């Protein structure tokens, strides 16, 4: 995995979302924390959806001349 800075990339966010969702199915689940956890998960999900809709790909064409 390549990472250019400390901000998580899209795939890392999706991975984090998967981990958050796992909590709801795991032994650590409790109703006291469920609301807060759900709010966090929802926020992350909306962030990912926003990223998915807005993120553009960066395309670079190398200047190297491969004919030589």
């Amino acid at each position, binding site marked *: *995995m*390549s*990472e250019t800075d400390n901000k998580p*990339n*899209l*795939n*890392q966010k*999706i*991975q984090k*979302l998967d981990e958050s*969702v796992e909590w*709801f*199915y795991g032994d650590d*689940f409790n*109703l006291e924390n*469920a*609301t807060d956890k*759900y709010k966090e*998960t*929802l926020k992350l*999900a909306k962030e*990912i*959806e926003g*990223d*998915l*809709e*807005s*993120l*553009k*790909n*960066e*395309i*670079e*064409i*190398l200047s*190297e001349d*491969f*004919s030589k």
Partner: protein
Amino acid sequence: MEPTLKFSPTELISAINQTLDYAYASVVLVGEVASFKVNQGKWVFFDIKDDESSVNCFMTLYQLKMPLEDGMKVMVRGVPKITKWGKFSFTVQAIQPVGEGSIKKAFELLKKKLAAEGLFDEAKKRPLPADISNIGVISSTQAAGYADFIKIINERWGGLKITTAHTQVQGLDAPAQIVRAIKYFNEHGGVDVIAILRGGGSADDLAAFNDEELVRAIAASKIPVITGIGHEVDESLADLAADVRASTPSNAAQMLTKDRAAEIRKIETTLDRVKQVIINNINNAIFENKNKVERITREWQNKVAALTENIKQKMKLLEALNPEKVLRQGYAILSGKVSPGSVVKITTFKQEINAEIKDVRDRQ
């Protein structure tokens, strides 16, 4: 007659070669191979001929990147020159089979050779990385296949860095250029996967992807390689050596990315499920609580009933011992000193009687 120009043999050959160099710096020759032979394990000689003429060709074995046999139709790029012995020769720089039959023949021979070396072994193939952020693309930026790839990638996913090495994707120079691009990505790093792309074309167009050096470079790449070359039906040796083969450049784009619309749908479904998990847990908690209350109520009611029953039993016992009840049955209570001449009190249900005792005897 005076000659216009006067040369020694060396000068003449040098002058002719200079002229050839100037006029035919690079020539592509197409014809049939004849008299193919390898000398001393390093020098390759053959003729390229047509119905009327034949050209002597020479190259090093190192430069020969395809199996060669007499009768094959090939395209060679090289430089014509006169040797110091005054013989015409064509020094070959690159060679490629042309025509369906020759391409197929060369393909099968090379496939057999490289398969024997294990270059196509399934066990050596690596899966595509799970998290792809940087894609190294090797293609011609003018090719339709490349445009399709970029279009599909942009439609499907975002946030990717795509670094493109522009190379020829057909012709004699294509294999060497693609090999250089593979080496470039392996040396510079920074990409998670290399995608080698070329849209559909004739067997001649796609022949570059059966080049031995290219196939070896793909197999040796430290970075996983995906190929998207030609159409579904086209199979090249590059495809066989790659870690993953996509049927087309568009298919490669699909294999390298998730679909953003599907991902959004998946997230929405996941959130709905999580909501349902919470609701189910709340319902379970309510149900359990209700059960607890019912159980406690039931236990309390049972205890009250048991106590009530106990009291009832005691009341019955007390009732049974009540003297009034005995008197009602016709019995009487005698109180006072029991001896002849004394007066005692006799209590019946309805009366109190004072009576004098006449006689006292023990019962038999």
